[in-house]
């Protein structure tokens, strides 16, 4: 077991090295001069400013030296200075990363809370109307883009177009927990639900199919023949086996979840890492772009590592 965990960690380290190398190469393999692009191409830039920025970014050194510096600094948590905000990249990232992680984590939990029970239920009611309703809902859930779902929720709950007797929810923005706990969660609710629904649909579909597979297994027939009550068969035996493959699906959906935060944060103006990245791309702030991509990919790799390890713990065959 220890060997398995160590191996997974080793793979994660190698992947991180590859990702950081690619992110480093980003400004070097792009056509055009990043310095000129950063200064804006409309007017002919001041040669002095060009030289200063080039110096600041270390672009005058040989590539190998730059690579060594970048890796060395990155390991120490120094990702350079943001060009547009004039503050260290790590500082902007560290203020925004927790918000993105919070959004993603809350969505993941919500998605499991919605997807797992519905998947079990629809497998048990297979072929009935309620199953049809649930599977159709899941098909819709996997097809509607995150931002469309987000606007749908805004239209219904913030603009209150149906004039339901509810207090409209705030459609955008962020309030820190320390200022107002209620305000914070009010603004977290819609983006989190938006992200969760799509994920819940995938989880539900996988749970349903893996439940059906477990239900049709030989062992289930034996357990029933033994005279165990149906609920014991389902809860103790079927569900336990059925949830293992679901872990893999959750792992596979991590990339979509991170992609989803990019779109969802934009819809709801949630000031997380993704909105920072979109802003950085629009401003051609290369150090900031590199930093955001590196950190988000690192989160992605680490969560995948954790999922792999959990899977290994649950299913010894996967080790």
């Amino acid at each position, binding site marked *: 077991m220890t060997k398995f965990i160590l191996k997974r960690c080793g793979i994660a380290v190698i*992947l991180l090295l*590859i*990702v950081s190398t*690619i*992110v480093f190469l*980003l400004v070097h*393999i*792009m*056509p055009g001069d990043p310095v000129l692009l950063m200064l804006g191409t409309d007017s002919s830039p001041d040669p002095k400013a060009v030289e200063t920025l080039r110096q600041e970014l270390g672009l005058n050194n040989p590539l190998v030296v730059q690579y060594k510096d970048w890796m060395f600094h990155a390991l120490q948590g120094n990702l350079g200075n943001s060009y547009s905000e004039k503050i260290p990249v790590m500082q902007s990232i560290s203020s925004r990363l927790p918000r993105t992680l919070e959004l993603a984590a809350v969505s993941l939990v919500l998605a499991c809370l919605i997807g797992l029970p519905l998947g079990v239920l629809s497998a048990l009611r297979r072929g009935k109307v309620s199953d049809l309703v649930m*599977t159709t809902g899941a*098909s*819709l859930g*996997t*097809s*509607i*883009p*995150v*931002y*469309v779902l987000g*606007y*749908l929720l*805004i*239209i219904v709950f913030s*603009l209150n*177009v149906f004039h339901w007797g509810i207090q409209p929810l705030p459609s955008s923005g962020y309030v820190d927990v320390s200022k107002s706990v209620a305000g914070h969660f009010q603004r977290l609710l819609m983006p989190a639900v938006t992200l969760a629904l799509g994920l819940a649909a995938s989880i539900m*579909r996988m749970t*349903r*199919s893996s439940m*059906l*597979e477990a239900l*049709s297994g030989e062992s289930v027939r034996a357990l029933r023949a033994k005279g165990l009550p149906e609920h014991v068969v389902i809860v103790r035996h079927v569900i336990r086996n059925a949830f293992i493959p679901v872990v893999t699906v959750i792992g596979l959906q*991590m*990339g*979509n979840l*991170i*992609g989803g935060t*990019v*779109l969802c944060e*934009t*819809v709801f103006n949630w000031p997380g890492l993704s909105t920072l*990245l*979109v802003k950085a*791309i*629009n401003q*051609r702030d290369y150090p900031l*772009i590199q930093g955001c*991509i590196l950190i*988000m*990919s690192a989160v*992605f*790799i680490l969560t995948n590592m954790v999922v792999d390890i959990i899977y290994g713990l649950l299913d010894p065959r996967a080790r």
Partner: protein
Amino acid sequence: MEILKRCMKNKKFVFSIFVLVPLIFIVLFGPMLAPNDPLAMNTANALAHSSSRYPFGTDEFGRCILSRLLVGIRPSMTVSLLGTAGAFISGLILGIIAGYVGGKVGDVIMRLVDVVLCFPPILLAMMVVCMWGAGVRNLTVVVAILYTPHFTRIAYSSTIKVRNMEYVENEISVGANTLRVLSDSIFPNILSPLVIQISLTISNAILLESGLSFLGLGVQPPDPSWGQMIGDARNYLSVNLMYTVWPSFFLSLTILATNLMGDALRDVLDPKLKESF
């Protein structure tokens, strides 16, 4: 023929055909069907509601939303269809080589392909866009690169499975030419999982293209694209609701139809999984 018959019995397949055939028609003839010039601005008539001249109303520059919808499907479809075709071909070639030749060559190919999977898809796409710029051509390349690994992995594992079958070993042992073995024995037998992957990839690619365009990193204005229209409409939700609703509805419908097509193909081509969904 047999497969087609089974497809026509599948409700999901029939539904997706009903949606996708008109869509393909719009992709081909959209600009001719458009009642107005999709780029013609008329600020005096901005954000107008539905009228006989502008059936779906107008956007913030007074452009006809219906015309923009009819034209705006093209970039999504171009990117997703050409990108998927690229990914399919390169994945097929890489996967077959890796699986058939095996050994070091196979390892190298599979590890290279894995590198692409270290990044969340949309991040890799954003990275490429910020290097080379946005636009239909670049987005197509991005989709092709992003989804090559999926096809490669499937082609690789199926090739290995088929390669060790007795009939393939027989063919090799009687001295059949390698290309012939690949085209006559391997290719037809690994095709069905790849076909299922094609429809999945197309819907993912549509999602990716529209997502990037929504963020303003995809198709560049003034050319319309559904994702970009939804992004632009964001500020006018309370003024003209339908401006957001129409592109959102058609985008979701397209993706739903493509997904259902994938489900139906899986039911038909892979009967082992038939019971599961």
